[in-house]
């Protein structure tokens, strides 16, 4: 979506992506599809608005947190599909932590109860179950990110090539705060927590604030640095708190369409809950708000994951599967030929912010309602459920 200075919508382009359900309780996304759709959405919105990349002041990202991607930084290829927040395959990892008596440590440091929901166990699962990933991680090739990190890495360059720097491997505190790996006091990865999941530290992204310029984009020409390309990931629900200002009295907001996560906006007087691009980014505020997390709200939300428990349904032949993939490849080729993909990179090279420029926000594509597919080892099913 592209917004103008008054906060009015200028244009939008939306694409749904596939919800892959290989077996009951498992929910996956294709990271390559998310990145492709992101590029298409950017160019689509610019086209509809009749704008070019240089009209944009900055780019912001909002993503589904917890969803875990591990990829090869040399090629940009994910080792396996993203494990989505809803996925419950790591139940046993979480239960083992509880049995081993680590509940208190994790709650105290990360502010989270051990649960399949959070990224830590999902990373561990990939390290243990996908061939070669642990070795690659130890050698510094396999890196982890939530979807924000995945997209920023690509948007800032992707794999290093032709003398150009590799994309930036960063995340923000709101994403890192949902991994069970970050200490809420220091806002840094915690060695003790990381050790519980046996995760090589070098595969974790750098933790930054939610509102800052992460890297001036190199621009169209290799090596050339241009103006700031602001980009910051935040979780939809929490970001919505930022966007919605508390009025003089108490109000509550609810985002419909994902998980139902009411957030308090209890600004006294005319003070908003989050006053500025806070470094603690609402984490502290949330704790001040009465220890919601400590009261197990997070855990309760997990119960409401209807998709995770739904068995795969409706099958389709492999031929159609190949067909869809071919269409996507063809679309990409056409985009490259038309120079559109190059234009996407230029989006990240905006000059200094001017009043007449537009701010654009990328929202991670929503779940798919597209047709299902099947694979030899995995059945893909369709779902129209909302989070």
């Amino acid at each position, binding site marked *: 979506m592209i917004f103008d200075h008054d906060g009015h*919508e200028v244009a939008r382009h939306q694409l749904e992506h596939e919800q892959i359900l290989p077996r009951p309780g498992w929910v996956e996304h294709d990271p390559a599809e998310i990145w492709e759709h992101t590029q298409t959405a950017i160019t689509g919105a610019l086209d509809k608005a009749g704008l070019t990349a240089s009209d944009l002041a900055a780019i912001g990202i909002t993503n589904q947190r917890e969803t875990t991607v591990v990829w090869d930084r040399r090629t940009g290829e994910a080792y396996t599909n993203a494990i989505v927040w809803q996925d419950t395959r790591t139940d046993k990892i979480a239960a083992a932590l509880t049995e081993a008596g680590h509940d208190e440590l994790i709650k105290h440091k990360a502010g989270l109860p051990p649960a399949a929901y959070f990224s830590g166990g999902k990373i561990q699962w990939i390290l243990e179950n996908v061939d070669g990933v642990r070795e690659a991680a130890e050698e510094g090739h396999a890196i982890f990110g939530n979807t924000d990190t995945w997209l920023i890495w690509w948007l800032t360059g992707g794999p290093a090539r032709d003398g150009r720097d590799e994309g930036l491997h960063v995340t923000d505190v709101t994403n890192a705060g949902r991994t069970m790996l970050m200490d809420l006091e220091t806002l840094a990865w915690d060695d003790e927590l990381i050790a519980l999941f046996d995760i090589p530290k070098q595969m974790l992204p750098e933790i930054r604030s939610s509102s800052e310029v992460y890297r001036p984009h190199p621009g169209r020409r290799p090596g050339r640095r241009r103006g700031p390309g602001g980009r910051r990931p935040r979780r939809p629900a929490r970001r919505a708190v930022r966007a919605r200002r508390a009025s003089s009295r108490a109000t509550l907001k*609810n985002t*419909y369409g994902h998980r139902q996560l009411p957030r308090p906006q209890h600004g006294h007087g005319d003070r908003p809950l989050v006053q*500025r691009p806070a470094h603690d980014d609402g984490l502290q505020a949330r704790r001040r708000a009465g220890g919601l997390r400590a009261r197990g709200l997070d855990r309760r939300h997990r119960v409401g994951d209807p998709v995770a428990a739904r068995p795969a349904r409706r099958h389709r032949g492999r031929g159609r599967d190949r067909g869809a993939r071919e269409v996507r490849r063809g679309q990409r080729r056409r985009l490259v030929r038309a120079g559109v993909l190059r234009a996407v990179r230029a989006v990240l090279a905006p000059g200094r912010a001017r009043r007449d420029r537009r701010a654009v926000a990328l929202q991670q594509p929503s779940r798919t309602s597209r047709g299902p597919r099947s694979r030899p080892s995995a059945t893909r099913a369709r779902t129209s459920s909302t989070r």
Partner: protein
Amino acid sequence: MIADADLELEALKVDGGITANELCMQIQADVLGVAVSKPEVAETTCLGAAYAAGLAVGFWSSTDELARNWSEAQRWEPQWDDAQRETGYAQWKKAIDRTLDWVD
């Protein structure tokens, strides 16, 4: 959350796709007993991302400036009285009870 925050709830601000459903929003207002308010830009999540980005590069100077951009598009006032609400809530809790203990 109201108990946690020790505050009166004045309104529930809503966003997201389901806000297009009038019935759903009216039920929300009736059950809560507070007004439900929907902003002009219902894609609040996306707008928030743009705001966070724009603040970082100085496109907007402060959150105060952002607050002035906010405007209400629609509002649903509660139409139930307290007795109706209490009866409904008791029924709801009963219904929840009936769904429990399926798995041994």
